[in-house]
């Protein structure tokens, strides 16, 4: 079975919603028009031999509709045939069916995409953030998220207080100060925290520090 034959087989099974196989650099890509059907297509692909899910990626087509693309790389271990499935999903829906019931490796891939892009997976039993921490308010891999990051109000999770060990024998802090006092590029969140505000006031150049994120800033919508 070649990749093209496998693609034809999938197309014969699902008909209209599968695009003509596209080839680039020897790789076959199939586009699944209906994101709701992706789990069924994957289940069928597994039944014809694609037992190894190499990877799931996501793409943010910022400024275009539909905004998200989810990409599945499948492989048949017995003969090494590979195929790529892609499906688009709009920003309003931002949800595709989970393929966790097809391949268990999809668990962490889907959690990562949810964490980085904010696409949810319907039927995933444990859709938590995986790389960022629980409670982080943004999706950093989106194109409208600036490279330098964003300040966040969640003090308890995003910014910590002075460590209790500061000034101790094993803590090397330049000048014995925390980052607000010594780092010119520090991001200071908007906050009502008295202690934090006092430290900001203690800086000589504290004008215009608040809410500043350094870097290229957000991308203007086309």
């Amino acid at each position: 079975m070649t990749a093209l034959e496998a693609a034809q087989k999938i197309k014969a099974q699902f008909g209209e919603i599968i695009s003509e196989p596209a080839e680039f650099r020897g790789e076959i890509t199939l586009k699944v028009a209906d994101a709701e059907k992706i789990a069924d297509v994957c289940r069928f692909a597994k039944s014809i031999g694609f037992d190894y899910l190499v990877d799931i990626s996501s793409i943010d087509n910022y400024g275009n509709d539909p905004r998200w693309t989810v990409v599945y790389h499948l492989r048949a271990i017995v003969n090494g045939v590979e195929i790529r499935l892609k499906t688009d999903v709009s920003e309003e829906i931002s949800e595709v069916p989970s393929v966790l019931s097809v391949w268990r490796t999809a668990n962490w891939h889907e959690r990562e995409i949810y964490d980085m892009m904010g696409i949810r997976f319907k039927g995933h039993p444990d859709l938590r953030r995986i790389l960022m921490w629980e409670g982080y308010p943004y999706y950093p891999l989106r194109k409208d998220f600036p490279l330098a990051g964003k300040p966040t109000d969640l003090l308890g999770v995003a910014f910590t207080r002075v460590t209790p060990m500061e000034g101790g024998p094993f803590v090397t802090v330049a000048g014995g100060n925390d980052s607000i006092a010594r780092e010119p590029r520090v991001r200071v969140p908007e906050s009502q925290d008295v202690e934090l505000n006092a430290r900001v006031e203690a800086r000589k150049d504290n004008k215009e520090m608040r809410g500043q994120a350094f870097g290229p800033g957000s991308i203007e919508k086309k």
Partner: protein
Amino acid sequence: MATVQDIEIRDSAARAAQAADDMQDLHGEKMVLNMGPSHPATHGVLRIVLELDGEVITKADPDVGYLHRGDEKIAENMTYTQFIPYTDRLDYLAPLANNVAYALAVEKLLGVDKDLPLRCQYIRVMCCELARISAHLLGLGAFAMDTGAVTVFLLVFTEREKIYNLAEAASGARLTTSYTRIGGLMRDIPPTWCAQVKQFCDEFEVTLAEVETLLTRNRIWVDRLRDLGVVSKEMAIDYALSGPNLRGSGVNWDLRKNQPYLCYKDLDFEVALGSVGDCYDRYMVRMEEMRQSVRILRQCIEKIPGGWANDKKEPVNIPDGKITLPSKQKVLTSMEELIHQFMLVTEGVNCPPGEVYFGHENPKGELGFYINSKGGGVPYRLKIRAPSFINLSILGELMPGAMISDVPVILGSLDFVMGESDR
């Protein structure tokens, strides 16, 4: 006055049944143990939340992301060449192999991966195999140390030092090598390099045999590893394990054999396979892979086009000014080369629009790069398929039922690196 009391002595089976009955009430009290993120046995910043019933693990929830740097985001904001140093920091035990994997992915997008000069291909293969030995050695040393065999750690670090010396001789850096460029290499290897590799192979084989005598039939080592963390063939495929962890379960899949890239199809080597899929099999697979790597290295030094000193000036870069930098001499004297250099440095290698996935047999498993390009010198989206990340996802399945002292053994046998897992 002594009193006589009847004591009922029951047989052992009845006593065991009674004890089990009494213990019933003690069940239900489970303890949650937080292991990591800076635990010495997790070698990096892996955190595992273990639920324990006595000493037996009933549930394990691995928590990754403590080393997340956003490499994929960073890649979208720089040219293809500028991202090479970031690949050093993925699997920082095998930076040379990461460089090669990334360069091959971009070259596949350009459609030139088959046109690489043969000398470049041989040097890249040698880099990959040295990196494999280096990574397996560290994995083995740390693994053995966690189970109490400290000598192995000292032996393997002596050998790794020699590999660092070789990396330094080739690229100028010991750890952050950034040796490859899109379409070639930073520079050719120095004339004495192959002789140094040959000497390393000779010395390394002796050390490996010594390590083998310390571990392979060591009673403690075997008892602690055998029948532990068993991953069946089906489970390994279902969880998409890769590298030695997949082959340890007996799945015959090695990208160097199954999807040959570079000059691997001209080289003679075997793929090591396990049979049971336990920790001992994974250890044995890594040992054999190192021996095969030495075999590949020896063939490469024999066959390398241009010979050791490259007297005939065999090229190591694709002779295309739109992909690789021209020589400085040409840049200073010729207008066309000057323009090429300017364009490459300011705008990057001009890649066609399209998407490719390239998987590379890295020491830890299949390191894949999925590049989605809209044309130009910057990727629109670059996804890194990190083998450590995927190999770790099986932990939640593998740990329950094991004892708490088995945790370092299972972790060591999976051989992950958090820099790659968290990207």
